[in-house]
């Protein structure tokens, strides 16, 4: 068990090195000299340019620059944002809770609806509900979520006025210092009445938009996994024992059908973060995705590169965690390798 864990963690090291190399090369490929970019259009004397280049280590051989870059990264220095002059890591950590909160609620939405829907469709296989659900799932899976978000804003937020159009909370009514960075938790901590509900209210549309594709994937996955499990002997045994259908499906079948769904959930983290870029842009949600897009607009390449690096680190770590979790609940995996 421990050997499996260690091996899985060691396997990520080459990926880390490759990631560092890739971001390093990407920085080189960006057109324009970093010093001149930073100085703007005013221009500087050649002596000062040489001095700044020396300060930044740009006059060293490329391999030493790479080693210096790796050294920096290993010390938690992911660069300095050109536009705010803040450390990229600090900016990332300030904004990441907003993205995490959004993805958490999106996932909650996808799971609470997708799991039961997929299970019911499997039980009623071939029926109207099954067919309707699978059609809806195909549409959900194919949804361009940036457009879906605009549509929901148009109908739900603007026409019907049911939800706010953008943002995380009504800033005019509620103001409190961020403690955790999670608006819902901070709202509870602030003790202001109504703040928590307002934060939730702001989360509804973005969570639905971001959760739509995972919802479709989870529903389809649960359905096919359930179909497989339902034909197993132990389910027949449970039925034969005279257990209630609800107990058979909910307890005996669903629990076993969840295994492949867990793996898939882990794989969805990467696509959730990709979707967050779009969702945050549409809803002006101050998270990592919106920040990355704005960094491009501002030509803030250090922020972009550091941000991409950090996002990838998160994805790699989540994948390792999911693998470990999977190894823990499914012994066959551990002994296989």
């Amino acid at each position, binding site marked *: 068990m421990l050997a499996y864990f260690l091996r899985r963690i060691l396997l990520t090291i*080459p*990926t880390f090195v*490759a*990631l560092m190399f*890739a971001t390093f090369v*990407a920085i080189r*490929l*960006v*057109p324009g000299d970093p010093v001149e970019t930073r100085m703007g259009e005013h221009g500087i004397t050649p002596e000062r340019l040489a001095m700044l280049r020396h300060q930044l280590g740009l006059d060293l051989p490329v391999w030493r620059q790479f080693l210096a870059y790796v050294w920096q990264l290993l010390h938690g220095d992911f660069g300095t944002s050109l536009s705010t002059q803040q450390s990229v890591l600090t900016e990332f950590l300030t904004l990441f809770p907003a993205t995490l909160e959004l993805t958490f609620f999106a996932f909650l939405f996808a799971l609470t609806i997708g799991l039961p829907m997929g299970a019911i469709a499997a039980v009623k*296989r071939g029926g109207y509900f099954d067919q309707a659900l699978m*059609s809806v799932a*195909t*549409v959900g*899976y*194919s*949804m*361009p979520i*940036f*457009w*879906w978000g*605009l*549509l929901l*804003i*148009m109908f739900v937020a*603007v026409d019907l006025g049911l939800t706010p159009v953008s943002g995380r909370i009504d800033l005019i009514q509620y103001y409190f210092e961020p403690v955790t960075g999670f608006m819902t938790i901070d709202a509870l901590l602030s003790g202001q009445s109504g703040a928590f509900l307002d934060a939730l209210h702001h989360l509804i549309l973005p969570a639905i938009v971001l959760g739509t594709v995972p919802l479709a994937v989870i529903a*389809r996955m649960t*359905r*096919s996994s359930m*179909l*497989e499990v339902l034909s197993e002997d132990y389910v027949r045994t449970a039925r034969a024992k005279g257990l209630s259908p609800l107990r058979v499906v909910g307890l005996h079948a669903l629990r076993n059908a969840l295994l492949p769904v867990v793996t898939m959930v882990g794989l969805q983290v*990467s*696509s959730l*973060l*990709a*979707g967050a*870029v*779009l969702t945050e*842009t*549409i809803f002006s949600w101050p998270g990592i995705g919106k920040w*990355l*897009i704005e960094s*491009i607009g501002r030509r803030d*390449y250090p922020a*972009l*590169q550091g941000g*991409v690096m950090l*996002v*990838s680190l998160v*994805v*790699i770590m989540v*994948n390792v965690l999911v693998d470990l979790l999977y190894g823990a609940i499914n012994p066959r995996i551990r002994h296989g390798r």
Partner: protein
Amino acid sequence: MDADLDIGLSASLTEAALAPGDPAIAILAAPSPWAAFWAAFRENKGAVFGLSIVAIVVTTALFAGIIAPHSPIEQFRDAVKAPPVWETGGSWRYILGTDGAGRDMLSRIIYGARVSLFIGLAVMSVSFVIGIILGLISAMAGPLVDVAITRVMDLIMSVPSLVLAILVVAVLGPSLTNTIVAVTIVYLPRYVRLMRASALGELGKDYVTAARVVGVGLFRLMFFTILPNCLAPLIVQAALGVSDAILEAAALGFLGLGAQPPTPEWGSMLADSREFIRSNPWIVTLPGLAILITVVAINLTGDGLRDALDPKMRRS
């Protein structure tokens, strides 16, 4: 795979039992691969429906010049934000209305089919070909190359697709070509991994050993002996890859990092449509609907392909 084997076996048995020229052969012989494929594909009504929509979209794209009533980039200054024909104030001149710059929506959507399909097909073919080559090399060229290729693919997969595409576009600059490059890089690992996995599965089989014993060269072994036996899942992946590429490119366009205006790309048509949400909803609704319909149609077709080509992957 097993099903294919059965069909092949029974076909050869029937041929052996009957004298050549026997009219029964025509009836008993296994149907041609195409006929067998079509028979299996036709069973799935959704897939046939999807395929017909795909056919319509492809026709629209091919004959955009004839079908479209206006030029997709001409700005009719006298008819800015004209509503579609069914709304009050709409006219048959601009059936689906015009956008914020007075360009005919219908013509832009028709020409957009051309752009989106081109992106989808270009990304699919390039990543398909490179993916197959890299996957085969990875499976057959020894552990060092294998580890190198696998690690790089792992790396690409560890960056969220859109974030990677954004990084590539930020480095190369936003344009239609760079969109294709970026999305190709994003989707390459799928083909490489699939190819590698199926090639590794085939490598241990007897026919490969037999070919090796006979002295078949490496190139021939890779592309003529092993590859044809791995194609089914790759083709399915390629079909679904077209729709994913269209979605990804549209997302880049929406973020202003894809095709640049006035190119009639569905995603970039939505880029600054947010300001029209309240006043001119058709500018927001229609391009997205075009994306959704196309992607759903391709996905339905892809699902049908999977069921027909690869019974093992069939999700009951």
